[in-house]
């Protein structure tokens, strides 16, 4: 097991800059999730660490050693892909043996058998060992491909959206299994996904990547509660954080004059930068409190989510989503009162989208 350090990595494909000055620190035994939309540079980052591609500038070290000149095999990292690349005509056991029989390793047949037995037990696929892989379900195949990584006992596991081809229920199940596996192995995981629920639920730390740049690194709680900018704020969390464009005037934020005004209170009032006149106010749906307070909105739509409801409110043309308990009765087209959980409001620079109260340095190294 080992830590991974990326120092100012830049990678271009012709004129397209895939990664720009990317610096990342992944601790030993950490479950680190790289989260971002399609095209953010997630897979490129994994390929660079695996040694399948090399950066234009910058350095990569694994376990404290610069691996710039090391081949993929020498780096001793294991890659697990979205598409389980198993050999279809082989049994599960043969698939697991395969990486141990390469020329670079000299394992005795006893050692190989012992490693396979251990991996199969960890992944609960012992009963499948003699089965051909084309007779497996999607979830079983993905377990086998993870097994093929485990038997190697690599220093780092690199996972590229391993769950995204599975159906929702299976994904949920395997999420917990993967986290459990990582804790049991005490292994360093770098896990790439575009799914914020996966990132939140599994990551010790999350690095949010957008257009080849790291926007924020933090624990799931930090990312959720103190988003560095409006990109992180809306990418993480479901429903997406409400963003309202407002003018700051005399201790108030005015979204719709007379109808949607937010008084500045507490810390925000004290620290409010005097030069800021236009801001974007961010509020999560659970912090829009319905049936209380002095604001009023029209109910535009009500979605039942079982345990709770998501209500879309309109104040003039501004839409706001609020999460309320399932038992609360909310009629479409009715007028409801609401207020905000003042303590949880976020304020972003109207132009740059950057959180007014989280300096960039804090956000990245916090």
């Amino acid at each position, binding site marked *: 097991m080992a830590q991974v350090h990326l120092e100012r990595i830049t990678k271009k494909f012709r004129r397209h800059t895939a990664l720009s000055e990317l610096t990342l620190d992944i601790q030993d035994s950490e479950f680190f999730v790289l989260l971002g939309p399609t095209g953010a540079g997630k897979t490129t980052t994994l390929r660079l660490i695996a040694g399948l591609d090399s950066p234009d500038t910058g350095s990569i070290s694994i376990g404290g050693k610069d691996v710039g000149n090391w081949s993929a095999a020498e780096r001793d990292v294991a890659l697990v892909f979205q598409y389980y690349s198993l050999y279809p005509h082989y049994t599960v056991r043969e698939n697991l043996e395969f990486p141990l029989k390469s020329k670079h390793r000299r394992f005795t047949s006893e050692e190989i058998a012992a490693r396979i037995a251990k991996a199969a037990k960890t992944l609960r696929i012992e009963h499948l060992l003699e089965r051909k892989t084309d007779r497996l379900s999607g979830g079983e195949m993905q377990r086998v491909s993870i097994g093929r990584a485990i038997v190697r006992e690599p220093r780092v596991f690199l996972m590229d959206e391993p769950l995204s081809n599975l159906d929702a229920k299976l994904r949920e199940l395997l999420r917990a299994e993967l986290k459990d596996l990582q804790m049991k192995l005490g292994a360093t995981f770098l896990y790439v996904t575009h799914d914020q*629920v996966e990132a939140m*639920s599994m990551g010790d730390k999350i690095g949010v990547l957008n257009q080849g740049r790291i926007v924020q690194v933090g624990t799931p709680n930090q990312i959720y509660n103190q988003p560095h900018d409006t990109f992180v704020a809306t990418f993480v969390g479901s429903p*997406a954080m409400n963003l309202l464009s407002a003018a700051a005037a005399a201790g108030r934020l005015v979204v719709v004059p007379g109808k949607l005004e937010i008084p500045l209170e507490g810390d925000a009032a004290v620290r409010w930068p005097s030069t800021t006149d236009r801001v974007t106010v961010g509020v999560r749906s659970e912090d829009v409190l319905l049936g209380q307070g002095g604001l009023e909105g029209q109910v535009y739509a009500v979605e039942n*989510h079982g345990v709770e409801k998501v209500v879309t409110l309109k104040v003039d043309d501004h839409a706001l989503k609020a999460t309320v308990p399932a038992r609360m009765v909310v009629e479409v087209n009715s007028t409801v009162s609401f207020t905000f959980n003042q303590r949880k409001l976020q304020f972003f620079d109207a132009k740059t989208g950057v959180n007014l109260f989280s300096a960039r340095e804090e956000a990245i190294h916090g």
Partner: protein
Amino acid sequence: MSAIVLKDVEKYFGENYIIRKLNLEIRDREFVVLLGPSGCGKTTTLRAIAGLEDIDSGQILIDGKPVHDLQAADRDIAFVFQLFALYPHLTVYENIAFPLRATRESVSVIDERVRDAAKALRIESLLNKRPSALSGGDMQRVAIGRALVRRPKAMLMDEPIGALDAKLREEMRAELKHIHLQNEATTVYVTHDQVEAMSMADRIAIMNEGVLQQVGTPTDVYQHPANLFVAQFIGSPIMNVVEGAVRPGDGHTEVVLGENDASLRFPAELFHKVVEQRHAENELSIGVRPEGVLVARQPTDGYIPVEAHIIEPLGPYDIVDLRVGKQLLRARTASGYVEKAGDAVWARLDEKQTHFFSTRTGESMGIRL
């Protein structure tokens, strides 16, 4: 606007049933979602209503009239697909106007209807653009607009937002629901996504392997699932299901999880209700959603000691895996309530949110406490 009735509809392929004895009534102006995993027969059912697929037996009635002999085009139904089939060389305006031009409506009628639809869908500013200049969400709005202008008797939608990204899907859910409330077209909507179904439907019809499992309002199917399939298909995280038994206790019923992994106190009436149904007392599957697993940080009367395992912080709340002997129960707690894996906490099941199923048949025993 109209009602759609399916009577004993069957469709088979060789010896395999694709749809089996399907009876379903979709009321005038209702938004019904056909929900199920891939291969459950939902899309075939939708295509059969549209007239794009023949059925082998049974009847489909629209407005009380059998439509068996009507061609798809004569059924007066609009179909919206997952892949927006827009004409790339026509403007948004012309794409929406297309079905009206085909039926030779007057220029003024066409203009009025196109503008009405565009207003409802908030795409008025896009009318002169071509599809290639639109985002995925806007393209789907145009496709829906094209269906709306015909003022069809019914709208059929096959995973219309399945190809959009998560954020856009979230936005479109509220939009589609709102559009439906405005124009009140009878709508049948197919999806495999239970969140979509719960969010938009007046009623959900859940299918599995060609068989209708349950029809009910979102609240019904969530709170009173008819069987284990529905119980575990609806809701996320998935409902906890543990095999167990009930035993008479002193003034209460003992609910035993697993093979004596834990024993919980339930109201005395539970045991009688199980016995009344002449059901074996030890062949029960006990279901409870994560929000029905109550957690305390201190020893509390009626709670049993358990060990916290993986904690998934999802933002507004956490999902905590609890180890109960050999069983694993997932609980929904306030964010940060359980600090870390390995912590000792106490738990019980909320009896009002606990479901009892027959392990043998998977059917709910209909016990409400």
